């Protein structure tokens, strides 16, 4: 296995499962963060993992929380307007020591249901490309031949499917776990800055 793949697997196994918990924690404790800020912060956290030697990380969840807290501190220091107390506040933020109990964790069944819903919600062509790749293990080229479209188009379809998965991960921390995307209540995602 090449190094990139090992890193991706490591992140998939040890970091992704905790993203929802981190988001929920941020929402509970750092009220000043907008949704947009949270998403930025999460991207920054993954950026830190880009080059880190993960083979020595034994507690990935704690490590992720530590990265997040450091990023909050760095951001707060950079933004001069933040009153001094905020720094202390962040420093005092406790990393939850216990993993959520089995009832709070996403079960394999819930994961599958969410996947199923995601797949069902995809546009027809997109769904077919996704199923052929992930369930029938066909390559992009084979899918292109089978569907009589270009490989680039296949990749666009697959990227849409992956985009839905990434969006669903963001919902994890909102107690709206596994809820179809259109059913998100209470806020409109901020895309206006784009």
């Amino acid at each position, binding site marked *: 296995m090449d190094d990139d793949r090992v890193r*991706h697997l490591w992140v998939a196994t040890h970091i992704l499962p905790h993203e929802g918990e981190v988001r929920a924690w941020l929402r509970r404790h750092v009220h000043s963060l907008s949704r947009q800020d949270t998403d930025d912060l999460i*991207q920054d956290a993954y950026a830190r993992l880009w080059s880190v030697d993960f083979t020595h990380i034994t507690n990935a969840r704690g490590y992720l929380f530590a990265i997040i807290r450091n990023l909050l501190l760095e951001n707060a220091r950079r933004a001069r307007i933040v009153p001094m107390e905020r720094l202390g506040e962040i420093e005092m933020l406790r990393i939850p020591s216990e993993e959520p109990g089995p009832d709070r964790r996403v079960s394999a069944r819930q994961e599958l249901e969410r996947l199923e819903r995601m797949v069902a919600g995809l546009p027809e062509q997109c769904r077919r490309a996704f199923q052929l790749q992930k369930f*029938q293990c066909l390559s992009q080229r084979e899918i292109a031949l089978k569907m009589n479209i270009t490989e680039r188009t296949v990749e666009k379809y697959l990227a849409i499917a992956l985009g839905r998965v990434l969006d669903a991960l963001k919902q994890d921390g909102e107690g709206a776990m596994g809820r179809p995307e259109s059913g998100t209540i209470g806020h409109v995602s901020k895309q206006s800055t784009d």
Partner: protein
Amino acid sequence: MYRSNRRIDSEAAEWAVRSQGRTLGAAEQAELDQWLEASPRNRGAFLRASAAWVDLDRLAAMAGSRALLDIEERQPPRRRYWAVAASVAVLMLGAIPAWWAARHHNVYTSEAGQVRHVDLSDGSNMVLNTETRATVQYDDAHREIELAKGEGFFQVAKDPVRPFIVRAGAISVRAIGTVFSVRASHHRVDVTVSQGLVELVDASNPDHVLRRRLGANEQATVEETHRFEVQTLDQSEVSRRLGWREGLLDFEGQPLIEAVSEMNRHNKKHIVVDDPQLAARPVVGQFLATDPAGFAATVAVALGAHTVEQDDGIHLQ
């Protein structure tokens, strides 16, 4: 210039799909490198997207048969007609089988720690676990795979004309359109079916059927003498046993000694358990198959043992 993280996410998704699905061309690779270089957030988003995309393989394996059924119902199995058409063409041309056979006699091997995906010409695919050797021989009447050693997972494209046969040790496993795995160890062969049915036949005498039907979530263990046992497994147990396809080993309370021998199958660097009492303790958790040091460190913490690095490997004491 501020770019929204949604925009970054969608670019990252596309790069993740492209770079995982095939080898990028030089120009494309340069474009990706430049994009990654442009901002740490791009790198973060790319790592997150890549991990999520890899993770879908695990989910797809868990979803397994249900998702496969779904797609087969939706799409008429067109490849069946191609396969029939192909064999008819070969019959008509007659002279072609020499190169046909030559082209379709292929040996695939995987090294320690490697998991190798192979797309077969009929639309079937196989995944080879660590240290496996498989010879694929296709002709107009047969699809045969000889598993000399190791373990293979097979997703078989339906073809009523050509049965799909995996030979391992003393048995042949015959399938028509199904998903199963075969593991050949010293004196026994394990066959696990995740979807469909297979038939177990004596390798030296194709008329001697050992078991007519082995169905979904059933596992047969066949010894050299043809003595065999069948057990029914949970769906989750079946997916757990197939975790190696994603480079992960999943243990749910097996004795440490079993978990260690499973880890050692995947690595040149071996783990040694010195204390027999420790060896019997249960191990729970998911581990990277190619990370014996990580495995040893985690287990040591969990079981209150410690690790000592020696010439012959990592000792758990």
